[in-house]
């Protein structure tokens, strides 16, 4: 664990524009108005049933209940993402933090320079682009979805309860 390196809750999420397919880009700030989940993961093509992106794909209905947009990010290129998404039938964007390599992961404090991949890191942003929860999982451990769901639930809780 490298606690403390990832941008913590209360930080404004650095804006970025990254390709998601060979001819499409996603800009974070254009998603304002709804919660955004950023799921950084080390690489496409990790083992099947325990795969984190496959799990999120299954549960995107739960994320949608909170109106949240899920984005997966890794240093893999767009063609690699396209093949991976097709094979795993993923229905959410995978962003290619490919050139300059890992630049967005670096700005979020979740790049493993020695390995050339990003951490398995989660960020939940509120509708104004503020980081409200972040978590770095040991690279070999799939963090599941409970932390994300808890964070989304807190975002949508009535303000007077705080």
């Amino acid at each position: 664990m490298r606690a403390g390196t990832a941008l913590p809750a209360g930080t404004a999420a650095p804006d970025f524009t990254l390709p998601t397919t060979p001819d499409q880009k996603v800009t974070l700030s254009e998603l304002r108005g709804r919660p955004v989940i950023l799921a950084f993961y080390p690489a496409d093509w990790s083992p099947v049933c325990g795969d984190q992106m496959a799990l999120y794909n299954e549960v995107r209905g739960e994320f949608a209940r909170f109106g949240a947009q899920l984005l997966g990010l890794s240093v893999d290129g767009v063609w690699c993402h396209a093949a991976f998404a097709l094979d795993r039938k993923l229905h959410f964007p995978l962003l290619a933090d490919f050139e300059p390599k890992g630049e967005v992961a670096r700005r979020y404090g979740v790049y493993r320079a020695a390995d050339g991949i990003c951490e398995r890191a989660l960020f939940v942003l509120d509708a104004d682009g503020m980081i409200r929860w972040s978590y770095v999982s040991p690279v070999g451990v799939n963090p599941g979805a409970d932390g994300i769901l808890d964070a989304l639930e807190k975002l949508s809780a009535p303000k007077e309860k705080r």
Partner: protein
Amino acid sequence: MSHLTPRVSESDHRAGPDDARVTLVEYGDYECPHCGRAYPIVHEVQRRMDRRLLFVFRNFPLSEMHPHAERAAQAAEAAAAQGKFWEMHDWLYEHQATLEDSDLFRAAKQLGLDADRVEQELAAGTHLNRVRQDVRSGLRSGVNGTPTFFISGVRYDGPWDPDTLHQALETAGERAVPPGTRERPR
């Protein structure tokens, strides 16, 4: 993070004594090959621990990846409605390659169930809500793939070969307060 929510209750499929010192909960998918591999291992630790273990199974079909998994889970729930959950559960894990609807109805007949009722309930989606509730509870509990195990309420991330899993269960059992003194101190 990663505590079983909700706790084991009467609505769960349970094998073993309710007051056993150790509870093993599996979130599983009937079409998942890893769960298929875990199936005889769970049987083995149940055999070794006998009355000291309560085993609970909750559904976690990964429907995008395994097109038959959610139907199979509903078939197990339909069997449960006729008092034969574990019989169907075992059949499904022993026939993972044949999980088409026709196979499920054949299984129902083989197991002495009212197969027409199973067919009707599958068609009507009678048990779909239950299956999806299990999935939701798994997500809240930190299920991160299948199978995911919880030992006495805490997610178990270790290896699940028979010896390691057995040892982890025994260790949890040694730490546990006898259940009788836990809820109602005398």
